[in-house]
């Protein structure tokens, strides 16, 4: 019972961290666009919408890529693609649905989508770099161990 509660609590904390990160990114995006349009505030309702959307996306992310779970390389690649597709659908769809960036020219929208894609690519590139670094460290320690005896 207590283990189940602890597991749910940790999962909830994980969702909150991810939600916080994505909400910050969305609000930052909106603030930059508003500033470029000459408006130096972000509507509270818009921020709440972004929070709710980010919560749903973070929830989906913890289901698609649960932290600390063993997955094969192929499975992880599929899950990463699914997550990127979902990010596009959720954030572009919500922006259209709630009119977050109403009134901007089409070429702005194109640039914003490109930035979103770059951001997602950078996220996975950072993960790839982390595994590369860990792999290098593992092999260095292995060599050291093998030479020691």
């Amino acid at each position, binding site marked *: 019972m207590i283990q189940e509660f602890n597991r749910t609590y940790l999962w909830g904390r994980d969702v909150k961290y991810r939600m916080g990160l994505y909400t910050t990114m969305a609000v930052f995006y909106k603030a930059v666009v508003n500033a470029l349009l000459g408006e130096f505030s972000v509507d509270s309702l818009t921020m709440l919408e972004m929070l709710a959307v980010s919560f749903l996306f973070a929830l989906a992310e913890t289901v698609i890529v649960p932290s*600390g779970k063993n*997955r094969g390389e192929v499975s992880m690649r599929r899950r990463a693609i699914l997550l990127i597709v979902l990010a596009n659908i959720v954030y572009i769809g919500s922006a259209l649905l709630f009119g977050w960036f109403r009134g901007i020219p089409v070429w702005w929208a194109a640039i914003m989508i490109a930035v979103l894609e770059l951001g997602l690519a950078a996220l996975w590139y950072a993960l790839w770099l982390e595994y590369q670094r860990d792999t290098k460290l*593992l092999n260095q*320690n*292995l060599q050291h161990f*093998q030479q020691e*005896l």
Partner: protein
Amino acid sequence: MKITVEHGDVPENEVILRCRELDGEMLHVLSLLRSGLQTLCAWTEDRQMVLLQPGEVLYAESVEERTWLYCEKAVWRTALTLAELEARYEALGFCRISRSMVVNLHGIRRLKSYPGNRIEATMRNDERVLVSRRYAPFFRERLGM
């Protein structure tokens, strides 16, 4: 620790350890010598028996309560359990990597890190084995990380 190797016309190879007391380092050397001198009794399905040096074993796997020893070119069966193999040859680099596998750290060619704290080990015979998430911390510890 001072290491001296003397070459001479001796009837038998001999190792003498000189120390004030048996400290951790000396115990490690002793266990290494003892485990290194032990041979592993193994056999094939058709009961062909062989005495293996522990260093010849790349990894051991338990399948349906039988323990198999994987060498570079052959697979042998042993009566020892994975726990016994690990305990007996730990000083020689035997390390548990999952519930059903013990690997010889000296038989690994390279390692690769994967998501979920999983590690893939490519052995000297190019076979790949996985260090499970549960055993990865102990594996890293063995490598001095």
